[in-house]
């Protein structure tokens, strides 16, 4: 992310201070044992440590759901808002405070259902924000209802005879939106890949959308079980401009070289064909960033008053 000068910034970060993982830890996470969110929390804290982001300059914004408890467990500023609406809040923060590092954490209900309009339009705005979709294919906090990403046939309390519709594919939906600038997928059970993907997302200039396949030990226990047990079901997208994790290359034999600049190829790879692909599907640093497009001059009170008087002159009797 690009730090910009900000009128509000009256005291800069402590240059000499070295931040450690512990500096980013807050209350003990209360997700279920075995929940994929724990690994994502650790990866995020590790990212902040690597990038040495001052906690006070960092904001985690979420909606409602299991995933949205995330900010409470980070020792940064946090905003735990309402269901589906994390992205507009994040735009409001970033638009007028581009000096802050803004992360959004959403579940699949948040992002792909109740907040779907914000998902599409935030891709268009392309603010310099990292958005994590923690996708476990189910509504967990409200106790097992069908989500847009539930696989067809998965039984839930609202669709006990199995999910009626085919699952929405967040990757192809995202890649179809004008101005999408960074689209990646990773899994909570591959910590090295997860961390590397978050790092790439953070370093991307623009809206970085990361779908994280996330296990729910309560309601979708078998959703990714096959891929967890059999690395052969996974295909890694590899490229110097993508995510490179050398230690994974021996374990994950299926690799496809994919240039993240190639949008057509990204869209093809995102189509469901039985393979789970992890890596950077698309990346374009050249797209305009909303808060830069909308940058406005900083005006002193005296300047504002002078301009206001000129404007009042236009209405003078």
């Amino acid at each position, binding site marked *: 992310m690009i730090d910009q000068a900000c*009128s509000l910034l009256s005291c800069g970060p402590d240059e000499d201070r070295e931040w450690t993982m512990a500096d980013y830890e807050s209350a003990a996470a209360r997700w279920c044992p075995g929940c994929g969110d724990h690994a994502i929390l650790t990866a995020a804290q590790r990212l902040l440590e690597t990038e040495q982001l001052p906690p006070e300059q960092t904001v985690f914004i979420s909606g409602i759901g299991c995933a949205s408890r995330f900010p409470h467990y980070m020792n940064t500023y946090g905003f735990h808002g309402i269901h589906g609406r994390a992205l507009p809040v994040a735009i409001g923060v970033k*638009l007028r405070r581009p000096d802050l590092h803004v992360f959004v954490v959403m579940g699949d209900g948040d992002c792909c259902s109740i907040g779907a309009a914000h998902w599409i339009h935030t891709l268009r705005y392309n603010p310099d924000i990292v958005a994590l979709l923690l996708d476990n294919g189910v509504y967990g906090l409200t106790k097992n209802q069908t989500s847009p990403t539930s696989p067809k046939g998965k039984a839930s309390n609202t669709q006990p005879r199995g999910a009626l519709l085919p699952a929405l594919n967040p990757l192809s939906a995202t890649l179809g939106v004008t101005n999408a600038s960074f689209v990646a997928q990773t899994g909570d059970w591959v910590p090295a890949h997860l961390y590397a993907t978050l790092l790439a997302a953070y370093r991307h200039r623009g809206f970085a959308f990361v779908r994280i396949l996330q296990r729910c030990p309560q309601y979708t226990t078998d959703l990714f079980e096959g891929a967890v047990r059999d690395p052969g079901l996974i295909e890694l997208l590899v490229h110097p401009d993508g995510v490179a994790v050398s230690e994974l290359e021996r374990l994950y034999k299926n690799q496809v070289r994919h240039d993240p600049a190639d949008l057509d190829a990204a869209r093809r790879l995102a189509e469901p064909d039985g393979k789970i692909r992890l890596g950077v599907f698309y990346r374009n640093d050249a797209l305009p960033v909303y808060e830069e497009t909308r940058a406005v001059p900083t005006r002193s009170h005296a300047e504002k*008053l002078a301009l206001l008087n000129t404007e009042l002159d236009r209405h003078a009797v």
Partner: protein
Amino acid sequence: MTMAPSSPPPPTAASSQQARPERTILRVPEHTVEVVSDSGEGAQKCAQIFGRVSAKMGNGVWTVEIIPAEIQPPARTPESASGNRIRIGTKPVTNWGDHADVVVAFNEQVLLHRHRLGALAEDAIILIEDQWATHDDPDIRKAWADAMEELGQRSYRFIHVPMEEQCLTVTDTPRRGKNMFALGLLAWIYSRDLDKIRELIAQEFRKKAQALYDSNVALLELGHRWAEEHLDFRIQVPAIEADRPRVVMNGNQALALGAIAAGMELCAMYPITPATSASHYLSDIFERFGGLVHQAEDEIAAAGVAVGASFAGKVAFAITSGPGLALKTEFIGLAVMTEIPLVVVDVQRGGPSTGLPTKVEQGDLLAALFGQPGDAPHVVLAPATMEECFLSMTTARRIAEAFRCVVIVLSDANLATGVQPFPRPEVNEQWLAQSPDLGPVREGLRPYEWDPERGLSRRVIPGQPGGMHTVTGLSHDEWSHVGYTPDVHERGCVMRSRKLAVFQQMLRPPLVHGDDAGDLLIVGWGSTLGAIEEAVDRAREEGVAVSSVHLRFLSPLEPGLKEIFRRFKKVMTVEINYSDEPNDPYITDENRRRGQLCWLLRAQTLVDIECWTRVPGEPLRPGQILQAIRGHVPQEVTR
């Protein structure tokens, strides 16, 4: 109104060139003009300029838009009527009055619309485009004849004006130029300053071609000449030299400039009538001031962006109308719960649902107060004039920041589109928001360090070292830690509510218009101020012991109301929202649904308050209110 004829003026050099009609000059303290055309023919522009030039010449002015909901409804239909009413006076004008005295109509159908609404004075002078009488299309000729028969039942005075024929001598597209011709007519009738009008035309077309300006001015002058050669009357509404500089604008422009004067930095919006024109104006000028308008993908997102910016220490507001307020409900509740300052402006229109998008109603009061699930105490205030639209933004911003609360500002379509001159605001640095302190917080500071008596606490803003915390819409303690225990939830409720009581103690009781005691007290709020006070004044001249109070704060209510109410035999609200009539079928005292302010005041004061409300989709007329006053004065005193 009385029209005192006086002697005609001496002939001028220009008027001596040919035989002129004998002229009557009517010298009156006030007069009301309407310009109506098919939508798209520009009557609005004509009337706006007439209103502005009248204000610039020192008259009191109040204008009201007559506006169809569609952009281009079928021409020559009553539903197509588009235009403006302009009431000008020697003294300040505070409402649109009862009836139009002079009407310029571009066809008989739009005139019929105004006639059927009872908008025209019994003796109104009507200048009407007469090409329809002799039109090639027999259906049009028949429509004209039928309309004239209906209109003939009243004693209007018709003056036929060959607008199209005249305009064709200057332009090939008379449909687009008639409005300036009409402006010329009115300019002559009311002796408006042509130089000032030319200036205003130049302002209107400043971004367009010089040729457009030239042809508009030629049409203006043509209308002026035609009037001079053909009309036998002129009307004088003397102006008084203002003792202070004044500005003239509509309520939405006033809100927009008020937001700038308040130091606002972000306006988040989604297009909705009749609020949008405020953000049009801001979109044009806000960035120069270091602010910006964010058009969000929907009403909910607009609220979210404003909340996010405010959370981050910037001064933000959202502007919408009723349907948008409904959609913002959840975010308003969140801002209340997290104590993030937020100003939401609701420019009310007729409801429920899509309702009357372009027309006035005061139907959102209770939704603004109680729309959020759970207990969500916040401030609701309502400006009553264009000037108060300007001032309310700074007031709202200060309250929101000082009390870490939500402030809803209730304007309406009448204020939004009406134009009124008012004293030029003298804005100084104290109006503008101060940049928040981003210094480190002291060790151990809690994000909600509530003063146990007042519920107030200091904001901690992202960027402040040592202040890290997560705000949440869940029930929380002073540390912003989620807590579901009775003591945590109840304490939070008390603290958020207490702030309102503390704020209420800072308010002063409302002033009574008229005597402090009497038979009947009218209580109003919002844009009805001028009409109510005019009606009260007229009733008092008739000897009725009536007074009025006008509330600016609806939540919390201003203090001392019960004490004021006690001094009158009867208290009655006058509002533009729905209430059951007491004598209607099935309606009893128990099931009667009352006006929204009435409902609120009854609940809060236990006084048996009456209401008189109407939902005509137009501002209340003072004459209507006067009749309501006469009908509601307690009987035993009107013997």
